[in-house]
Structures are given as structure tokens and as C-alpha cells.
């Protein structure tokens, strides 16, 4: 028995290989599987799966940053997002004070400034910090802050948000009096000014000043158990990551990678379960005929008469499903897909004399269904499965888009929903809208290639040469 199956599989494979787009589909499918397998390696934010909706996880990223490769297509490069570790750390004792001094160097060689420059660190116990930012031309600004608390807390100093007036003052030294008069610290683009060449028009920012920017951080630890940890300089770039970031600072690339496994899961499980049910249902109806068939046909037609998406929407709104219940709900309605064709195929196969021959030999219904009927339908079932994967994915995305998705997981549909709800379409944040849709389309195409290829093999009539 084994021998026979393997030889037929091989024959099928040999035919399949000849259909070029089928092979392309398989290759793409392999790529998707690899993405799922190597997910941790591919995701710059390894906790994206669990903490996608945890805003504190994404604080270090810029908001609405474009993808890094945008720089390849523009002459005025955006600053790339980066985190900079201190180049030197020195500790000294001044009386009862312990002083920790750190120096960060940021090489700025872009035409557009980063969205923000943040100093991030964790403080324990009483401490005060002093930060000095020195531009390549020597101009500098200072920031001081003393804190007293016994616990551990995160400190975050943002130039764009906290130091606007200091930047304004710095620029005022160079700027035209008229300009100073017409601008005010609230409205200037702090980052642009910070990274602008020192010239009269500096406040209206303009020519970038390239070079090394130095940030000197001095932490005075006042109590014995005080500590400073994890200090770094976060450059919130104008561009960040392979796919940019969204309005909640999340890395879209990580979201896409995290969504891949869900898309595959939803697509494969739904199509497999529903097609398996549908094929068995169709075969049983077609084989037994008579009142069994009529009854099964009635049930089938009831299901056929229900518009799928509206029901899923209402069920979603009423039952608030998790991803698994959503898959079950989809299976509940998806199985009707292959029934009609399978039933007519079963009716046709049933007419073959070998079925009658088996009956004449005394074969049981079970033997006829499982040995003679179902094996003939396996190729068709696989083709149908492949072709129903994309629709399952699109359905999940559609339900998510309306806002009924499972919030505990990251799916492409939900990324799109976030984008749509945050007005990404209106703002033209294309890197938020295009990639998830493309991912859905690409996966759809993958399975379409595979399914259509099998279809071509199964219907020689459609072959043209």
C-alpha cells in the first residue's frame, strides 16, 4: 500500500514541477515557513508578540518614522533611528557624593534631523543628573535635574519635548533678531534647530550641521544605595526599521513578522478543517444519495444561504471571539465551499463501474467511501484547501478591520485596523498601510499559485498545450 501511494505522489509532484508558477508558490510558501521558524532572529523587538499593545515597550522608538530604505531614494537623508551606548564611563568620589560621568557620541551625517534625542536611564535612590549637549561647532546646552526618591525609576529626557526653550536660547545667540522676534520656543522645530548650522536663519532651520555631537551625562549619587543603570542615548530617527514605525511608535516590521504565523495558522487550520469536513460531507451525500442526500442537501443549502462576512461580524460583535473561536466560527461556515463540487464528483465516481464492481464483491460502504471514493478526491481537496487559505486570511483581516479582532495577538488585519483608525490613510502614512496589505496579498498569491497549479493538473481540459 505504501509503495503505491508514494509512486502516485511522485507522479503528481513531477507534474506539479512542470507548472512554473506552482513552484514559485511553493518557494514563497517555504519562505513564509522559514519566517515563522526564525521569527526571533528576524524581529528586532523580540517581545513584540506579547507586548504589542504595551506602549511602554515602544518608548524608545520614534513616532511615525519612515522605513530606513527611504534614504536610498532621497537625496536628503533622514536620520536613522539608533541607540548609543556610552563611549566612556568614569566614576569618582567627591566627599559623600559618588559622581558617575558618561560620554555619548553621536555621529550625525544626514540632511534631516532625527525626530527626537532622548537620554534614557534608570535611577535608584537619591540622585541628580546633569546633561550637557555639545554640538560639533562647540555650542552647547545644559539640563539639570535632581530627584529624590527611594525607589527605582526610569528617567527620560527628551530634547524635542523637554528642552525646547534651551534650544531656542542656544539658537538665539546666532539668529537674526527679526527671526527671534517672530518665533517662540513653543513653535520651533526643536530638533531641526538643534541640528542646524549656526547662522542667522537657524531658528527656521535649514542647513544641517553634520559632525559629532557629544552628550555628557553626570550623575551625582547622594545616598549609599543609589545607582545608575542602563544609560543610553536614543536617537528617534526620521526613519527607523525595515518598515518604519506607527503612530504608537511600534516597529511595523516586527508586527509583520509576528503576524506571519497567525496568518499561516488561520489560513491553514481554517482551510484544512473546513475542506476536510466539506469533502467528507459531499462524498457521503453523493455516495448514499436518496433521502440522506436530500436531507444533507437541505442543511447545506441553509448554510449556503447565510452571507458569511455579515454573520462573522455579528457573531464577532456579540461573542467577542478569541483567535481560536474565530477560526472555529470560520470553519463553521467555510465547509460549504467544496461540498457542491465534491458531491457532483462523488456522484460521477459512483457511476464508475468499479464502484459497482466493489459492491458486487460485497464491499462495505465504509470500504467504498474510504478506499475508492475519497482517494480520488484528495488532489481536489488539496487544491481547494490551497485556494481557500487566502479567503480565510482576508476574512480574519476584514473582521479585525471592523475592530473585532483578538487583541491578544498581532495579526496583519489588526495592524491595518490600527492604521485605519489612527487616520493613516488621511495622513498618508503609507508605510503603515501598504506593508500589511501587501503581506496579505503576497500570502494570498502564494496559495493561489499552488492552488491554481494543482487545478491545472487536475483539469487537463484547461491545459492548452
Amino acid at each position, binding site marked *: 500500500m505504501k509503495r503505491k501511494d508514494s509512486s*502516485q505522489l511522485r507522479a503528481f509532484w513531477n507534474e506539479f514541477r512542470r507548472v512554473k508558477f506552482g513552484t514559485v508558490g511553493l518557494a514563497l510558501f517555504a519562505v513564509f515557513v522559514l519566517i515563522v521558524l526564525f521569527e526571533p532572529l528576524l524581529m528586532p523587538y523580540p517581545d513584540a508578540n506579547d507586548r504589542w499593545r504595551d506602549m511602554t515597550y515602544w518608548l524608545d522608538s520614534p513616532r511615525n518614522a519612515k522605513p530606513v530604505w527611504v534614504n536610498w531614494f532621497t537625496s536628503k537623508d533622514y536620520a536613522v533611528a539608533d541607540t548609543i551606548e556610552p563611549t566612556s564611563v568614569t566614576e569618582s568620589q567627591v566627599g559623600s557624593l559618588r559622581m558617575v560621568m558618561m560620554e555619548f557620541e553621536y555621529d550625525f551625517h544626514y540632511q534631516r534631523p532625527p525626530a527626537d534625542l532622548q537620554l534614557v536611564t534608570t535611577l535608584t535612590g537619591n540622585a541628580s543628573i546633569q546633561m550637557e549637549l555639545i554640538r560639533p561647532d562647540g555650542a552647547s546646552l545644559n539640563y539639570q535635574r535632581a530627584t529624590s526618591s527611594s525607589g527605582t525609576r526610569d528617567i527620560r529626557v527628551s530634547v524635542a519635548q523637554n528642552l525646547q526653550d534651551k534650544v531656542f536660547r542656544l539658537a538665539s545667540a546666532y539668529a537674526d533678531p527679526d527671526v527671534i522676534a517672530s518665533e517662540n520656543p513653543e513653535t520651533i522645530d526643536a530638533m531641526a534647530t538643534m541640528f542646524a548650522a549656526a547662522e542667522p536663519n537657524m531658528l527656521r532651520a535649514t542647513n544641517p550641521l553634520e559632525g559629532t555631537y557629544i552628550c555628557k551625562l553626570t550623575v551625582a549619587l547622594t545616598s549609599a544605595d543609589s545607582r545608575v543603570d542602563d544609560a543610553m542615548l536614543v536617537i528617534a530617527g526620521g526613519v527607523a526599521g525595515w518598515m518604519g514605525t506607527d503612530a504608537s511608535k511600534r516597529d511595523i516590521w516586527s508586527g509583520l513578522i509576528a503576524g506571519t504565523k497567525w496568518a499561516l495558522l488561520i489560513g491553514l487550520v481554517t482551510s484544512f478543517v473546513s475542506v476536510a469536513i466539506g469533502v467528507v460531507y459531499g462524498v457521503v451525500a453523493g455516495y448514499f444519495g436518496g433521502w440522506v442526500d436530500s436531507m444533507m442537501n437541505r442543511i447545506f443549502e441553509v448554510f449556503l444561504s447565510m452571507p458569511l462576512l455579515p454573520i462573522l461580524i455579528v457573531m464577532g460583535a456579540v461573542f467577542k471571539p478569541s483567535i481560536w473561536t474565530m477560526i472555529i466560527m470560520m470553519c463553521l461556515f467555510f465547509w460549504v465551499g467544496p461540498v457542491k463540487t465534491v458531491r457532483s464528483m462523488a456522484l460521477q465516481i459512483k457511476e*464508475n463501474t*468499479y464502484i*459497482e464492481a466493489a459492491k*458486487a*464483491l*460485497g*464491499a462495505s460502504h465504509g470500504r467504498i467511501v474510504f478506499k475508492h471514493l475519497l482517494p480520488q478526491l484528495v488532489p481536489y481537496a488539496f487544491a481547494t484547501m490551497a485556494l481557500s487559505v487566502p479567503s480565510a486570511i482576508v476574512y480574519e483581516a476584514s473582521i479585525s478591520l471592523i475592530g473585532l479582532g483578538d487583541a491578544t495577538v498581532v495579526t496583519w488585519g489588526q495592524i491595518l485596523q490600527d492604521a485605519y483608525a489612527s487616520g493613516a490613510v488621511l495622513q498618508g502614512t503609507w508605510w503603515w498601510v501598504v506593508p500589511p496589505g501587501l503581506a496579505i496579498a503576497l500570502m494570498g498569491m502564494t496559495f493561489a499559485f499552488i492552488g491554481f497549479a494543482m487545478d491545472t493538473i487536475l483539469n487537463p481540459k484547461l491545459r492548452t498545450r
Partner: protein
Amino acid sequence: MSEPILRVENLKKWFPVKRSIRQVLSGERTQVKAVDGISFDVQKGEIFGLVGESGCGKTTTGKLIMKLLDSTDGKMYMEGEDVTGISGDALAAHRRKVQMIFQDPYASMNPRFKILDVLMEPLVIHGVGETSQERETWAIKALEEVKLTPPDEFLSRHPHMLSGGQRQRAATARTLMLSPSIIVADEPVSMIDLSTRAEILHMMRQVQRELGLTYIYITHDLSTARYFTDRLAVMYLGRIVEMGVAGEVIDNTLHPYSKALIAAVCEPVSGRVNRIKEVPIKGEIPAATNIPQGCRFHPRCVYATQACWEQPEPELFDAGNGHMVACRRYEEILEKGDAAKTSEAEF
């Protein structure tokens, strides 16, 4: 005469027809009377032919004998035992004794099976044989029986790798696997090329003689029926109209329908090109839902008189020497027919 191996008494098979709502409401019941009361005996070791046009009920009769269909009425005895309403073990035993060869040898084998699987299937279904080795030996023996040699070469092939004749041999081998006593052969050679047709018939007859089998040979082709069968029955609209020794039925035909049928057959002899063939029959075959009153052949019978549709349907009776006919007026017609024969038109 000894106990017949198969005895059929007044067997009927009516199929219900889908009714419209009006028919359901008025209690009207239409039925296709595919087999409408047939009786015959088959002796052990003979080849019994069932001949007729499409739709005459010959295939349905075959299926009734196979118990692929349940009869509506009537009785059937196998080796003296009533097998009309059997089920379960008795049915399984019956299926081992009666086997079938189908018209299209290609369609009668699952294309995904190898010949070995095809041959093993009856054994697997009936749980015959201990080991697969034992079963394989039997399969090889069966293939040798039908002259499909060397057997090893064929066992691993799929049906599509065989020629039509070889397939029908393999199909015959399958029927032999369970050592049956009756084989129902439904048009076994009609889909096979002329050049190999005789070969298959020859092989079938050889197997029959060697193993002492009984055949029920179903066909529309009178010429092969004459060649292959010992006795034959001519069917029309679910009834046997004439039955007897093959040569006798064909050369001394009694029933007007058989006459028409035989007259219509073409023969490979010269000198007939420019002659219009007289076929003593009229009209088209009526639907089996609407069987005519009286003798069911009367609307098409060129000799029909008023009595034919007013009197009840004639039963099959012995016209001498076991030559049975279901026509009241066959003697009258015989005289008329001879007169007609001499006046055949010629250009």
C-alpha cells in the same frame, strides 16, 4: 433435467419515479417497470444469454441476480435455496458464489489500484486467505487461468498500462478469485476491439469449461450471443418474449419482436448493398413508465389484431422442444412471415 443452479420466478423490479406535487396529491404513482415479471432457469455449466435492446431490462436483471438491487416482487433460488430477501452473512455467501464481469473493463477497475490490488480486493473484503503471500499466489494462479502471462509482470501495473483485452482478462481473473459458481457477464466484449473480441470470448469459454462455471451473458449483440451462448432469452420492455436454445431461437424465430430484431442485424456477407432491409416493426420503443395494455409489443407489432390489446398479456409458454414464446398468434404469424420474406424489395 437436474436441479437448476439458478431459478428466477416472476421477478420484478419497479423503480419509483420522481412525482410532481400534483401527482403526489392525486396519489398517482408512476413507476419504471424495468423488469416486469420474468421467469427462467439456468442449468449448471451452461451459458445463458439475455438479449435485447437498451432499456429492455437485461442489465437490471443482471443486477438483481447479483443482488446489487432488491427485487420488487418474485422469487429467486440459488442451488435450490431461496435468496430473494437475504442479507448479512447469507448475502455475503451469495456474493462469493455470484461474480460479475462488466462492460467497460477500464471503468470496472479503480485506476489508482494496481492489478494486484484489484485481484486482492475480493479476498480482502471476504477475509479469505491468511497471509498476503497466500493471496498473491492465488492472484498469480487466476492470471494464469485467464492467460495473462507472465503474471508477475502484470501484478504491479495499473489498469491504464494494459490494453483493452488485457484489462478484460484481468477483470475476469478478479471474478475467479473467490471460485464462484455463476458469473454474470454484462456486455463483456462490446467495448473491445473486434480483433481481440473473439480472443476474450474464447478465453471466457475455456475458463468456463475448465472450472465448470455457469455464465449469464447479457448482450444487445445477437451475433455474439448466437456464437457464445447455449440458450438465450429475448427481452422486450422488462419481459422475456422468447427463450430457447440459441440456434433454435435465431433460426426458427417465433415471436414477432425477435423476428424484427434478427432481421435488423447486419451480416458480413456480400450482395446486400442495394437492398432495403425489411424490419417488421413500427414506431419507437415506448417509455417503461407507460407500458401498453394487453401484449406490450402490440403497438409496434405489424401483425397485431384487436385481440392483442384487448386480451390479457400472453404468458411465456412452451411451443415445443423447450422453445418458449410469449405470443398467442405465433403460428398464424409464422405463415404470414414466410410469405413476406419472399417478397423482399430489391432494386
